[in-house]
């Protein structure tokens, strides 16, 4: 060890370092928790600090190199109460979602403004280019820097608030858009809210409140899984399979066990074989249970072989290297269509996995559903169309990788602090694996640095729990970025064929969707994701006859699972492409043709109850089918058309600019429809109690993973209780403390958990009114109103919430006013959206550049327009990556070739297209204050809209994703363009 001295945040500080230690590691050891791990190679920028005043990725600075230099972290700003103007700007503009990289962004802003107090947007985006953000689409961080600069220059700034945009339609019918109307002029970061006359003005709901967790995030306070250091903690590492398919002949762990400092080595030879499925889903998890903690067979490169716990990461890595494993390599298959052919390698030949549909053909699930008769309709139709589409494998890429820390507490109960979207599912699923009762397990979800479905999984919690039991010490396991790619979860590749019948008037009479999904080595979410694909693929358009056929195939690719959108992006790419092709063949305007057929207010979602986890028998007609009870799609289309300049799609001079002969321009559209939770399944709970000062503690099981869920749920409760949001202290989630919630998935939190929060608040409000009526001498409690932190009598008298709290807690008929409620919905109201895209295609190189993305969303009433628009901006950018540049690449042995950010390309701040987001209000009666979901629908329309824009630009249709330069070039060349 060498002693180094750095000037840390103005204070000379010493630390001990070895030659390979990074500055990042030293800073974490010194308690600088704002500095976050994103990768070992610096691409994420989550660990960026100021090094002699310059922004650098601290993972790439060796600690010994830093000796004698000054280092600044965001903690340097935390010496005064309140927030520094830069921190305040990030909080007020909605630039913080998970806040995982907030410290780096704030520091980058400091350094930039030091050099240039009035930076251009280009300079800001360049500063942010080294800090990857998977959440905001960079829209609001750019606004935050502009705002901070203005404040620090002394310029006056207006409050950051949504822009109210007048309606263009009557809410039901299409509008004609004036080509000369450029629409609202405002920063792209400002959500455009198109109000509905059905929605009343409210005090807290509908307002762009600052997130309730903003302070801890923007200050870099210790809030995430890794920001604790239990005494005696051990470090775990996993040995991953180098083979796509192999039988483990033997594991010799002698040398690893003998290594001083190694405390446990676990593998199939010394760990109980308990079957499970890792997808974080409601009990009973869908079969098959095809996993065990450590198996004697590996089924993808990166599959688990063994795990070790040691005194340091280096010792754990050394122990892993010392494991001597002999493999019998087996044949492997990677493509879903090849995997289900006779003679393909059988991936799950073990006899103790039950309920595999056809083990010999690797078909883990087969299901089908039908309304009416598609074959009869096809036989009778004048026109039948067919299109086949292939969608690829991508990753969620949360900047915070999977990380879990487990220990046995003083009662010898298992505590797991973990980055999860599903703490309650994890607790239940973990129990049998480690041989403990549910009651003896506590799962704590702290702040999460993004999940996007990757953390809707019991992925590594069993490993740390096993090791904690084996060692009786706390154990920490964090995946590296590379491990995150091949040992975490991904989006399902699929091959989808649509067939549609159209009558002479352009009405769909039948739609048949045939899907083969690739669930990789294990089933996990294989059944449910594919079911959602069927649901989304077959409920967007009206047709009396519909059929869904689905096979889900095992292959030897790293495991697909839940990923924001959950099967919908795949299905809607295929559907919106297929519908576009039909329209072109019919000589119809694609938008008009889709409008003629898409589901409208009051229409039946006619196959929905027959697909999914709680599907009814597809052959039995139900008495009643769900219907669309709110839809703002026409207003969405109108706002989107105006924003994108839709009229230009027919202008040949615009499409083929004279001064750039190799460029073709195009516009594309996609109709989007999603769901709000899983009906009859998803459930959330909430409990609220009053405090002495009239504030309220609110405990929710819902899992805020950066989405703003805590804020939205707090706003709902605040609206009911007549207090500002700051009086609601939200805590989520801890299985020992908070009520149950299924977790953060399926676009359910605002709709399901939000309703639970509203109901719990209503319970509290009822009791407050009863007690206040006594205090005020009012006979009818229901005549009282709550607002402005007071309880008001009809005659204008009032008491404060604090007076009521003190009275009821301390003075008379003492009681704790509190309320608990939970909610499960029989409904699943669909949000709708119109996605518009502008692109340029270089016809000589195939390079597609996306110039603008506009999404207008009907999410009912946006509880918080700033966080809601942030969801749309970030979701669109993830969807852009899916469509345009992200892709798993493998060699012929199933080894990933691009397991590093850069080769695996995600968009960064300095290459973003322009974005514009509209929130079109409707009042969904079944939702809390009229809300529907918003988090996943931005994932659905970008890919088909780009594809359709390429057709508009070049006339060439491409049915495979992503639209990388060579794929587009090849298609153009084949078409003779």
């Amino acid at each position, binding site marked *: 060890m060498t002693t180094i001295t750095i000037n840390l945040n103005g204070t000379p500080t010493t630390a001990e370092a070895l*030659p390979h230690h990074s500055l990042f590691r030293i800073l974490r050891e010194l308690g600088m928790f704002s500095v976050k791990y994103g990768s070992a190679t610096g691409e994420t920028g989550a660990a960026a600090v100021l090094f002699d005043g310059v922004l*650098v990725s601290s993972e*790439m600075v*060796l600690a010994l190199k830093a000796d004698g230099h000054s280092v600044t972290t965001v903690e340097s700003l935390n010496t005064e109460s309140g927030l520094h103007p830069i921190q305040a700007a990030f909080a007020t503009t909605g630039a913080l979602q998970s806040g995982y990289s907030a410290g780096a962004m704030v520091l980058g802003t400091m350094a930039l403004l030091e050099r240039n107090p009035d930076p251009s947007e280009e300079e800001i985006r*360049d500063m942010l280019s*080294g800090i990857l953000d998977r959440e905001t689409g960079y829209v609001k961080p750019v606004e935050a820097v502009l705002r901070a600069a203005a404040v620090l220059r002394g310029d006056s700034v207006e409050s950051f608030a949504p822009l109210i945009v007048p309606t263009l339609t009557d809410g039901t019918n299409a509008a004609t858009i004036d080509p000369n109307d450029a629409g609202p002029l405002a920063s792209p970061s400002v959500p455009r809210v198109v109000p509905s006359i059905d929605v009343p003005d409210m005090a807290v709901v509908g307002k762009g409140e600052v997130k309730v967790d903003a302070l801890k995030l923007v200050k870099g306070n210790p809030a995430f899984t890794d920001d604790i250091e239990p005494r005696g903690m051990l470090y775990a590492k996993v040995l991953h399979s180098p083979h796509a398919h192999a039988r483990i002949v033997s594991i010799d762990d002698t040398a690893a066990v003998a290594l001083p400092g190694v405390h446990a080595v676990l593998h199939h030879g010394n760990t109980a074989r308990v079957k499970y499925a890792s997808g974080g889903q409601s009990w009973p998890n869908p079969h098959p249970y095809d996993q065990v903690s450590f198996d004697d067979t590996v089924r993808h490169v990166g599959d688990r072989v063994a795990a070790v716990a040691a005194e340091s990461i280096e010792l754990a890595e050394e122990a892993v290297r010392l494991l001597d494993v002999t493999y019998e390599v087996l044949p492997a298959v990677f493509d879903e269509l090849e995997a289900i052919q006779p003679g393909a390698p059988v991936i799950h030949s073990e006899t103790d996995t039950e309920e595999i549909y056809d083990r010999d053909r690797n078909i883990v699930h087969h299901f089908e559903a039908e309304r009416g008769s598609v074959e009869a309709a096809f036989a009778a139709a004048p026109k039948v169309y067919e299109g086949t589409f292939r969608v690829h494998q991508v990753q969620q890429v949360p900047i915070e990788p999977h990380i879990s820390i487990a220990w046995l507490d003083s009662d010898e109960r298992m505590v797991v602090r973990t980055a999860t979207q599903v703490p309650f599912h994890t607790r239940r699923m973990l129990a049998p694996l480690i041989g403990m009762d549910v009651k003896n397990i506590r799962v704590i979800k702290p702040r999460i640095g993004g999940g996007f479905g990757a953390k809707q999984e019991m992925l590594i919690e069993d490993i740390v729990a096993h090791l904690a039991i084996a060692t009786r010490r706390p154990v920490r396991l964090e995946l590296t970025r590379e491990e995150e790619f091949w040992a975490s979860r991904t989006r399902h590749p699929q091959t989808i064929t649509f067939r549609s019948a159209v009558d002479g008037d352009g009405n769909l009479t039948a739609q048949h969707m045939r899907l083969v999904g690739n669930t990789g080595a294990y089933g996990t979410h294989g059944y449910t994701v594919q079911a959602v694909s069927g649901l989304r693929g077959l409920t967007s358009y009206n047709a009396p006859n519909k059929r869904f056929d689905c096979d889900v195939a095992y292959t030897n690719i790293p495991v697909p699972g839940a990923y924001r959108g959950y099967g919908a992006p795949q299905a809607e790419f295929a559907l919106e492409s297929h519908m576009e092709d039909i329209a072109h063949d019919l000589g119809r305007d694609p938008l008009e043709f889709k409008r003629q057929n898409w589901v409208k207010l009051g229409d039946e979602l006619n196959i929905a109850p027959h697909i999914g986890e709680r599907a009814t028998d597809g052959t039995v007609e139900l008495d009643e089918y769900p219907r669309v009870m709110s839809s703002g799609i026409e207003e969405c289309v109108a706002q989107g058309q105006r924003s994108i300049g839709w009229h230009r799609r027919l202008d040949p001079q615009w499409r083929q600019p004279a001064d750039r002969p190799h460029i073709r321009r195009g516009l594309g559209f996609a109709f989007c429809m999603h769901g709000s939770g899983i009906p009859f399944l998803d459930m959330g709970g909430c409990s609220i109690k009053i405090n002495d000062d009239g504030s309220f503690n609110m405990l929710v099981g819902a899992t805020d993973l950066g989405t703003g869920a805590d804020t939205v749920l707090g706003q709902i409760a605040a609206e009911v209780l007549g207090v500002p949001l700051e009086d609601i202290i939200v805590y989520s989630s801890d299985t020992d403390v908070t009520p149950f919630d299924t977790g953060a998935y399926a676009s359910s939190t605002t709709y399901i958990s939000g309703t639970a929060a509203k109901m719990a608040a209503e319970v509290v409000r009822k009791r407050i009114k009863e007690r206040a009526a006594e205090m005020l001498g009012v006979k009818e409690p229901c005549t009282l109103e709550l607002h402005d932190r007071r309880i008001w009598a009809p005659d204008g008298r009032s008491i404060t919430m604090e007076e009521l709290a003190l009275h009821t807690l301390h003075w008379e008929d003492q009681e704790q006013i509190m309320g608990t409620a939970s909610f499960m919905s029989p409904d699943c109201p669909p949000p709708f959206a119109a996605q518009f895209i502008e692109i340029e295609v270089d016809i000589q190189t195939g*390079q597609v550049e996306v110039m603008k993305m506009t999404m207008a969303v009907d999410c009912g009433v946006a509880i918080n327009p700033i966080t809601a628009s942030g969801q749309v901006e970030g979701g669109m950018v993830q969807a852009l990556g899916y469509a345009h*540049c992200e892709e798993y690449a493998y060699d012929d042995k199933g080894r990933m070739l691009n397991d590093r950010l850069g080769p695996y390309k995600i968009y960064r701040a300095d*290459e973003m297209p322009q974005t514009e987001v509209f929130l079109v209000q409707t009042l969904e009666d079944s939702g809390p204050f009229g809300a529907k979901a918003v988090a996943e629908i931005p994932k659905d329309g970008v890919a088909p809209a780009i594809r359709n824009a390429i057709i508009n630009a070049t006339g060439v249709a491409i049915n495979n994703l992503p639209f990388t*330069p060579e794929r587009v070039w090849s298609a153009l060349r084949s078409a003779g363009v």
Partner: protein
Amino acid sequence: MHQLVGYHRPKSLAEATGLLESPNRMPLAGGTTIVHDGGGHPVELVDLQALGLGTIATNGSHVELGATATLQAVLDSEMVPDAIRKAAKADQPSTLRTLATVGGSVGAAEGESLLLAALLVHDAIVNFADDQSAPLAEVMSNGLSPGDLIVSVSVTTGGSTAMAATGRTPRDTPIVAVVGRRNDDHTRLAICGVGPTPQLVEEDSLGQLEPPTDFRGTAEYRKRLAEVLTARVVGELS
């Protein structure tokens, strides 16, 4: 990947070159290409930060870029030709550009480096601590030998430049990129993405290229890109 077991911070060039005579030592500049994974041969690092090699200076028609000048310093210097500044910006994002150095980029010799292509068309000469010099193309072709210590890279200024690139996104590492410079009726062209290092080419010899195939582009596609992008650069320069 390396196993880092030692660290030195010499105070003079002579001390540095002496240290680097040992085969298990390598120079440390920005450090962006050095990743410790605990495996491989043990390596000791010789940190160049105290040697004063980070300056950028102009001398008539030449600019000398210090070996430890960061790409951000190159971008920020108005002495440096525009194409080199743009290429320095393109090679790394903000948090790595402040670490990565000119000398480190030459040492890494990555085939997709736009900076190296821009240096090539500006007639870059690599200067070593032993007072030897060699053209950049030659250095990349031959590779560095153990003990080599780059102290600076000299480039000529003047002329007009153009560049064209194709990537998956606007700021993606280019699949193929071409940088051109026209000076005194002489045009120099350098291409990235068609070989293990960026290379100088003649417009009429593009057919001889033998690009690699990888997941971002086949050899056939890269050859086509080389032709298209070269034509654009030449067209812009003429």
